């Protein structure tokens, strides 16, 4: 028992440095959610409950609008599904890793945000740390930052001591860093290019509110139809 607990302490210590960028980002975008929610008349306990039970950045921002008389619950489901639809992709890359995680699997699926997902693909897990405990530590730490951020926002309200305009760029910077890291370590750059190019093209064609679903479909179609080419490039480079 002692040994197992030691394993967790070690995993959390090893995971923490990797999560610091998310800590910065989540504290601030979580705070923004808390501020918005308390302006609707919900105190910090409500913000905490929502960040524990939902745990989704854009999903919670959107949800603030639902707390109004005459809310249509079917519409709530539809809009939340659409705003989070990109999450459908994430599990496809984690089917095998999560399926070995036993009781932790449900929480791992629940807590699969953009940021946690991205961290799984760039962090080199230290050799002496259990992989599953390490991944669990990343997922749990990230959610704790999110809950803390939303509580701070709901308590402090609009009295934020300094001008934080632009702090949300931390999240953009995190994804850029992960993108560059992927680029420098992967054999083929085709999938990364496909993501960027289809994203830009669909953004220009469909506009900023509606481009994610078309982008996802285009990425799928291109990856599937270019499978031979991508796999060949991986093989020829590996020789």
């Amino acid at each position: 028992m002692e040994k197992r607990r030691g394993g967790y302490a070690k995993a959390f210590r090893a995971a923490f440095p990797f999560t610091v960028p998310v800590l910065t980002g989540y504290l601030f975008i979580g705070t923004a959610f808390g501020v918005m929610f308390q302006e609707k008349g919900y105190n910090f306990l409500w913000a905490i409950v929502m960040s524990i039970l939902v745990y989704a950045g854009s999903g919670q921002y959107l949800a603030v609008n639902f707390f109004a008389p005459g809310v249509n619950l079917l519409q709530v489901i539809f809009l939340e599904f659409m705003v989070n639809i990109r999450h459908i992709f994430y599990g496809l890359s984690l089917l095998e890793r999560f399926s070995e995680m036993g009781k932790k699997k449900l929480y791992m699926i629940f807590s699969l945000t953009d940021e946690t997902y991205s961290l799984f693909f760039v962090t080199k897990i230290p050799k002496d740390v259990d992989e599953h405990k390490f991944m669990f530590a990343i997922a749990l730490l990230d959610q704790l930052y999110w809950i803390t951020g939303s509580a701070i926002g709901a308590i402090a309200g609009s009295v934020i001591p300094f001008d934080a305009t632009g702090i949300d760029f931390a999240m953009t910077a995190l994804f850029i860093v992960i993108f560059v890291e992927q680029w420098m370590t992967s054999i083929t750059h085709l999938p990364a290019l496909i993501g960027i190019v289809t994203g830009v093209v669909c953004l220009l064609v469909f506009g900023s509110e509606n481009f994610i679903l078309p982008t996802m479909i285009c990425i799928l179609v291109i990856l599937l139809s270019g499978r031979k080419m991508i796999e060949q490039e991986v093989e020829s480079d590996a020789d």
Partner: protein
Amino acid sequence: MPISPQLSILIIVIVGITTFVTRAIPFLIFRDGKKIPETVKYLGGALPPAVIGMLVIYCLKSVSIVSFPFGLPELIAVAAVVVLHVWKRNNLLSIGVGTVLYMFLVQVVF
């Protein structure tokens, strides 16, 4: 509160379940024990770089290049993060400097 606590809780639960189901769909389709098709394994490997590329665009989606400041703060800060990261390969440094630079650009310069 604009609506009753009961309805508020109901909304939170519905939003939570919808979000969870969205994330769980791949695991519901490809259940444990079943063999994962080769195509899905291939997609599992090829998707992350493409999705992360898409997320970068998603973060920058509201930037307007046709009106002032023409996306310049974003362009400068993104370039700074890329150059710094290729050069030093230190996650915290790249993200920290990039964010502070961006805040400076949008608050003071533009």
